[in-house]
């Protein structure tokens, strides 16, 4: 597909549309259906439809949104909710640092870069890291914006659907919606793994997270898992490169 189109230079419009089309082939629906439950949670705590949908547009992080509405339902104080969300979204720091160098173009201001980074969430990140490095640098941003906006708009709409569905979903179906995120992320990580670093990082992430969850509690377990597992994965990769060189 990409080879066939390589003859004529791809226009911005075509790249945006191609990104949107690739997103609507599966990823946009995955993240969209995964957040149906967030709409239901918002309705449960008495928040209006507009706020539920805005939470997807603004926060754009399923786990943080679940924490937000779940904590409100449990009567947790707002500053404590903010702290919990801050901890749950820490993954965006390494994810943003890893992706932005692929999307940065000469002449982009800081605000434009922050707007670009706002779309970063797991689905967009995994898929972008898989697709963008193979593309010419100047084609990446329009493709990314088409892809990410399709994901964000689909998910915002499905968050609204979830708001209306609150309390009507049978339990097996509700558990199926919650299961979309882990099963899709597992497969997307497996599909995106190219190097020994990726494989070691994935295996250690899976193995260490439950262990650290028990050892240090559920606040700092993700951070610790990322740093310890990521460092080991990096060192394994470097040792292999040294031996190969």
């Amino acid at each position: 597909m990409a080879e066939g189109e390589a003859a004529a230079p791809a226009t911005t419009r075509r790249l945006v549309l191609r990104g949107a089309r690739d997103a609507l082939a599966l990823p946009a629906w995955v993240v969209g259906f995964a957040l149906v439950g967030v709409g239901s949670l918002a309705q449960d705590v008495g928040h209006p439809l507009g706020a539920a949908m805005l939470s997807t547009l603004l926060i754009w992080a399923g786990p943080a949104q679940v924490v937000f509405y779940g904590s409100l339902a449990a009567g947790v104080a707002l500053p404590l909710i903010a702290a919990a969300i801050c901890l749950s979204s820490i993954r965006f720091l390494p994810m943003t640092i890893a992706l932005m160098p692929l999307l940065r173009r000469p002449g982009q201001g800081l605000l434009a870069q922050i707007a670009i980074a706002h779309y970063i969430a797991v689905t967009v990140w995994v898929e972008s890291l898989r697709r963008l490095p193979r593309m010419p640098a100047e084609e990446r941003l329009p493709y990314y914006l088409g892809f990410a906006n399709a994901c964000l708009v689909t998910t915002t709409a499905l968050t609204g659907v979830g708001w209306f569905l609150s309390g009507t979903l049978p339990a097996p179906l509700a558990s199926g919606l919650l299961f979309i995120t882990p099963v899709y992320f597992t497969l997307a990580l497996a599909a995106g793994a190219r190097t020994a670093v990726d494989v070691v990082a994935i295996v250690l992430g899976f193995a260490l997270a439950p262990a650290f969850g028990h050892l240090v509690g559920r606040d700092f377990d993700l951070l610790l898992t990322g740093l310890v597992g990521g460092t080991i994965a990096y060192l394994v990769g470097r040792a292999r490169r040294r031996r190969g060189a």
Partner: protein
Amino acid sequence: MSGLEAIVGAGLAPYLALILFGFLPSEVWRVLGVVLSRGLDENSEILVFVRAVATTLLAAVVAKLLVFPTGALALVPLAARLGAVAFGLAAFWLTRRSLVLGVLAGEVFLIAAATIALDGS
């Protein structure tokens, strides 16, 4: 009138809470990521390390969702949750790496297991 009110709400409180205590504490990491990544080349060594940390973090998020689930997913036994992921992975490899079929297979397994588990209780 009441229809519109159901959509936008009666007051600003839900929106203010969302922005101050939901959006800002989460967005701060993306903004910090933009600032810290300035001047980094896409082929730089530090990015290999950062990508390894991010990948580990993602796998950790998945493991947490599977081992310590919330809501309706917590009603499904751990063995069924892990079995459904394994089934999805097997379908993914057997269908020559089709994400769609892998996700569908995992979902079918989990919803079937959830139906059986919830019926029996």
